[in-house]
């Protein structure tokens, strides 16, 4: 790693003030940013690293008027082990318990998990070997290169790399709201493939809290992850579903540059009793719009089956 200034932020205001003026990055759990700095992946190496762990009052799980509120610095183990989340927001607890390894779950925070950068190997190649569209270049190297872990739903802003997060689909399926220092963003609108980030957050904007409205009674949710290894690996495809009396939300991740909400499949399920045929039909419709690359046809099959399995396991 190259040298940088390190500042322990005492408050969000202090962190925002420094973020606005210099070339800076934020660190909380550090499990994504430290490897990024070690490999010099970011287009501009930061001058300053701001530690958010020292900001008080960002680590909590509370229920306020039935709504679940999770502080941005809450670690994944706490979310995976929390009884309320396990009972009412099952998909989120399962997603948090399946992300990465036990050690990383004890370090990584929820806000860090949803803001992590893509795992595309062209983007992550050490020393910025590939000046791809995410680094202000003019092409996506996966289009002509090895794209076996890339998008099956086409490119966004010219980029074929997929969003790697496990918590993202769970938050979308549960219709979460992301509260930042500037505004409230609905989970589905948070992710956007840009330069080089994965989110719509402004440079001086920090996530403070994640809120989820209590699901109506009888709503069940679950999360399934398909990866090469049970531990450590990022998902090849993962899927979160939440089915209530008259509504359903299905979200896939690892299949497109942003988490992919299968809205057409949701209408098939909404208000009906989930049977084997209906789940199969939902799976087919969820991937009906897929335009796989030459190496990613297999992911269409996985996505289809994951939707079916997730619906049947409710």
């Amino acid at each position, binding site marked *: 790693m190259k040298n940088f200034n390190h500042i322990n932020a005492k408050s969000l205001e202090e962190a925002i003030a420094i973020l606005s003026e210099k070339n800076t990055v934020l660190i909380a759990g550090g499990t994504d940013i*430290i490897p990024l700095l070690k490999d010099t992946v970011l287009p501009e190496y930061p001058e300053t690293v701001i530690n958010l762990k020292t900001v008080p009052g960002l680590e909590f799980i509370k229920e306020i008027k039935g709504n679940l509120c999770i502080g941005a610095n809450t670690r994944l183990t706490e979310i995976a082990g929390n009884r309320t989340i396990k009972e009412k927001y099952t998909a989120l607890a399962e997603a948090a318990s399946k992300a990465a390894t036990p050690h990383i779950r004890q*370090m990584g925070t929820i806000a860090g998990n949803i803001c992590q950068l893509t795992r595309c190997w062209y983007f992550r190649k050490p020393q910025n070997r590939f000046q791809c569209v995410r680094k202000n270049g003019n092409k996506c190297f996966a289009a002509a290169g090895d794209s076996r872990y890339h998008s099956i739903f086409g490119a966004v802003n010219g980029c074929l790399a997929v969003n790697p997060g496990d918590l993202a689909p769970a938050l979308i399926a549960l219709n979460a709201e992301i509260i930042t220092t500037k505004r409230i963003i609905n989970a589905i609108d948070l992710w956007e493939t840009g330069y080089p980030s994965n989110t719509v957050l402004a440079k001086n904007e920090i996530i403070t809290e994640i809120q989820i409205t209590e699901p109506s009674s009888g709503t069940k949710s679950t999360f399934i992850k398909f990866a090469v290894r049970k531990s450590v690996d990022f998902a090849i495809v993962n899927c979160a579903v939440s089915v209530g009396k008259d509504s359903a939300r299905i979200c896939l991740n690892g299949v497109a540059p942003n988490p992919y909400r299968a809205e057409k499949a949701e209408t098939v399920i909404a208000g009906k009793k989930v049977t084997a045929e209906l789940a199969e039909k939902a799976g087919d419709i969820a991937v009906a719009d897929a335009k796989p690359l030459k190496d990613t046809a297999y992911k269409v099959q996985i996505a289809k089956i994951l939707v079916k399995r997730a619906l049947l396991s409710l």
Partner: protein
Amino acid sequence: MHNNEKINGSGKRTSFTHATAQAQAAGSIEAIPATVKDFRCPVCSKDFSGYPELKQHYTEDHPDAVIPVTVSLNINGKDCEVLIEPHWTLQRTLQFRLGLTGSKLMCDRGVCGSCTVIMDGRSVLSCSILAVECEGKNIQTIEGIAANPKWKPLVDAYCKWDAMQCGYCTPGFLVSAKSILDKNPHPTDEEIKEALAGNICICGTYPRHSTAIMEAASIMAKEGE
């Protein structure tokens, strides 16, 4: 343990037993420097008598460089102070400032678990933690476990069941094992596998670990009675 006897350079017979390993670990904890003695400039390798002089040297000679900082750490119950640059990881600090070589650097990307340490009760990866962020934290390394007689059954069980081959990943596994035994004195096979899921062993010793840890757990439970 006569089969382990070796003849050292001076011709004196020594044997490498648990007692010698424990003494070695205790010795390395004892040898942790409590205060910073060398104020060496990392840019030009000049030595200074104290931190203010080093700071003065930076403002004069390296105005654009990042000034090293002093950080107070608590390692295995011992308070110490180190002079590091802000980008140093905890693993690098342990190895090159405090002489604790037990937390191994392997993948350096937070994947393999060989650098696991226990920080404030959580088993975390020291290669992915900045040492400047560890100020005031209670850190336990493999040396602390090896030096503590309480954990002898765990080390013995690892030796007995041969839960290692090349041994490079073993310190990380032992720290993770200690961490799970702290939280759950009677873990099941499934729970151990889950807790060790972040440690990677290329020799493939995985099945031995749960056997060894479960045996150590039952011995420690008997000792505790």
